């Protein structure tokens, strides 16, 4: 056992931390205010090689492991959770299934420009009537010669509108329920594929979240990802890894909020001393730091398991629940430590608290995660 990061991981942490502090943090409040997804930030990440961290160099990636990727998401989210989720959705949700299940041709065509950051990726599973329950999906794909014709819509699609590549799930055989789901790679601008309503959100407002609409959208059969009926499996396996990306995002949010609360507690004077001198504040900070440390170990362990070829489904469900609950609790306490100022938009902790909330909901609600964990525990 050895819990120290090796040099490669330390280097990427330092690289991303510097980038996050210098290039991402300064505009974070404004992007949040204006609900602005800034493609320039994404392009800068691409220049640094962050848009394809875990993919092999032959596909334009950095050839590093999932731990390196998780550290990058954590560091970005420490200053801007919207930027963190943009990278996470791009890498874990769009890149991963193409890397794992794509044909060589699909990887060359889609994964490479994504890894190089020329194209942004997105993932379309959720529908208005089917969130956690994917079997209730209504979008259909009907084979027609060398094409599939897609009809239906998807909601809450992160990176939607900004992305050029979409991994989309549709029913090819509605009678077979989850076994009738297939996955497709769609490109922006395919006939019949349009971007619907842009959502107004509580938090992660600088990430774009939209509706996808398919009206007799023709997708070449060559863009089917995996076999017909294999889509549900692809979706679930993608989410297993994606969960840990969200854990990393939550971890970063928590770390950022904690640091601000700690520093503010030392500065802020009341009753003739800094509030950090009050035991009530000390205990809050101690509990925040302890939970963050635990969340970090869970998240890194899940990433390590994936990197070393071990099963990681249970570990990533645990990291997701624990890190996201920690993010919510830590950001709420950070607002509390800031007192009235914490409620004001001049300080970033209120944004962090709004951003934290979604980590308990998306990529499988924490309630779904608990069902997953219970299954592992009880079948052990």
């Amino acid at each position, binding site marked *: 056992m050895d819990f120290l990061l090796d040099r490669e991981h330390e280097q990427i942490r330092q690289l991303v931390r510097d980038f996050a502090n210098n290039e991402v943090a300064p505009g974070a409040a404004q992007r949040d205010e204006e609900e602005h997804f800034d493609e320039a930030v994404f392009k800068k990440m691409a220049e640094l090689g962050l848009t394809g961290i875990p993919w092999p160099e032959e596909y334009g990636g950095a050839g590093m492991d999932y731990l390196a990727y998780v550290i990058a998401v954590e560091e970005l989210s420490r200053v801007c959770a919207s930027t963190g989720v943009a990278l996470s959705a791009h890498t874990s949700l769009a890149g991963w299934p193409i890397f794992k299940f794509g044909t060589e041709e699909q990887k060359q065509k889609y994964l490479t420009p994504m890894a190089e950051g020329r194209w942004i990726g997105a993932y379309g599973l959720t529908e208005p009537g089917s969130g956690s329950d994917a079997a209730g999906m209504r979008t259909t794909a009907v084979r027609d010669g060398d094409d599939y014709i897609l009809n239906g819509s998807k909601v809450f699609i992160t990176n939607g509108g900004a992305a050029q590549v979409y991994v989309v799930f549709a029913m090819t055989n509605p009678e077979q329920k989850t076994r009738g789901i297939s996955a497709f790679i769609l490109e922006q601008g395919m006939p019949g594929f349009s971007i619907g309503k842009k959502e107004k959100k509580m938090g992660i407002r600088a990430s774009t979240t939209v509706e996808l609409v398919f009206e007799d959208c023709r997708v070449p059969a060559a863009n089917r990802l995996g076999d017909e009926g294999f889509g549900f499996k692809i979706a679930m396996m993608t989410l297993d890894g994606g969960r840990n990306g969200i854990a990393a995002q939550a971890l970063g949010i928590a770390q950022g909020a904690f640091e601000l609360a700690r520093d503010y507690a030392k500065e802020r004077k009341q009753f003739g001393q800094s509030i950090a001198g009050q035991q009530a504040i000390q205990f809050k*900070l101690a509990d925040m730091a302890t939970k963050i440390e635990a969340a970090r170990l869970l998240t890194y362990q899940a990433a390590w398991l994936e990197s070393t070829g071990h099963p990681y489904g249970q570990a990533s469900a645990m990291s997701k629940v624990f890190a996201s609950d920690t993010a919510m609790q830590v950001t709420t306490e950070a607002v509390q430590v800031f007192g009235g100022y914490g409620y004001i938009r001049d300080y970033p902790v209120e944004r962090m608290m709004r951003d934290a909330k979604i980590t308990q909901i998306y990529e499988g609600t924490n309630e779904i995660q608990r069902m997953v964990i219970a299954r592992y525990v*009880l079948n052990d």
Partner: protein
Amino acid sequence: MDFERNEEQRQIHQMVRDFAREQILPLASGIDATDEFPGELIRKMGELGIMGLPIPEEYGGVGADFVSYISALEEISYASASVGVILAVHTSVGTFPILYFGTEEQKQRFIPKLASGEYLGAFALTEANAGSDAASLQTQAVRDKDTYILNGSKVFITNGTEADVYCVFAKTNLERGNRGITAFLVERDTPGFRVGKKQEKMGLHGSATSELWFEDARVPLANRLGEEGQGFSIAMRLLDGGRVGIAAQALGIAKAALDAAANYVRVRKQFGQELMQFQGVQFMLADMATKVEAAHWLVYHAASLRGQGKPCTKEASMAKVFATDTAMHVATDAVQLHGGYGYTKEFAVERFMRDAKVTQIYEGTNQIQRIVIARHLDS
């Protein structure tokens, strides 16, 4: 980063785990019911090398690393938290201080016997009026030529009625606060030293907790550990390792309670189905398991740092707070999932809950740990 045990760690872990499940587990409820010190078991552990696991081979130990020692504490506490604390105190604060601060003569005289289990170690810092606040110790040691004369008393001493050598802290200089404290190795047959009666506790039965009395007890100069006035820093140096040990004990209790609860809800039926089919039950188990996993990695993270000789004060306190709070939470919910049966002595979970409670209290209360963590937030 590497989250796996190396080969030696794996072997020791397996050996202790097998021993604990085969030899300790069947005796655990009996030890709890009778509150009797499990002397025979401790003797067997001595034969297997478990009483001197992290002690160098030159002093009769196994020479295992700190991570292996911690996993032994966890596995033994899984079977019996009482045996776990007997081992933790014997090793972390009964033997290590001699290893770290003893003269070569003291090491030769005491450590081989402690490592083999012939001697049992104990640690006597706490007094009736000095718990977390060591500076207010009242036990005094006055130099008289080649001896020190000790007067005072100690409370809550684990292994108290059974130990052969006690690491005792007393004031040699009343005016210097913490810097007036000195450590002594007090042997059981020391004239004027008396072991008080066993203290009755909520849990951890069989761990032989007692008071100690010193009435003009004459301790040879040769038994002073370290320099005069060095006692407090000796005690503090032991804390990090000791805290990780108690965190491992709590982790073992938590894992035992989680397994007991998971097993019970698989078989217990209500409303025509097993309890495990109810979402309310599933969610409790999921939270218990997640906290246990988080505690596990905090404990081994701190143990690994400690084993590498790296600073780990913050990490040890975090592991202690989190693992012990988790043990209490998981054991309480395990009782809850057993319903009325969980409140009876028929099931082990009520013992787990009683045993878990003290882990939040001793080796520095969790409130003290939070103060320690708060002091280290910049690192």
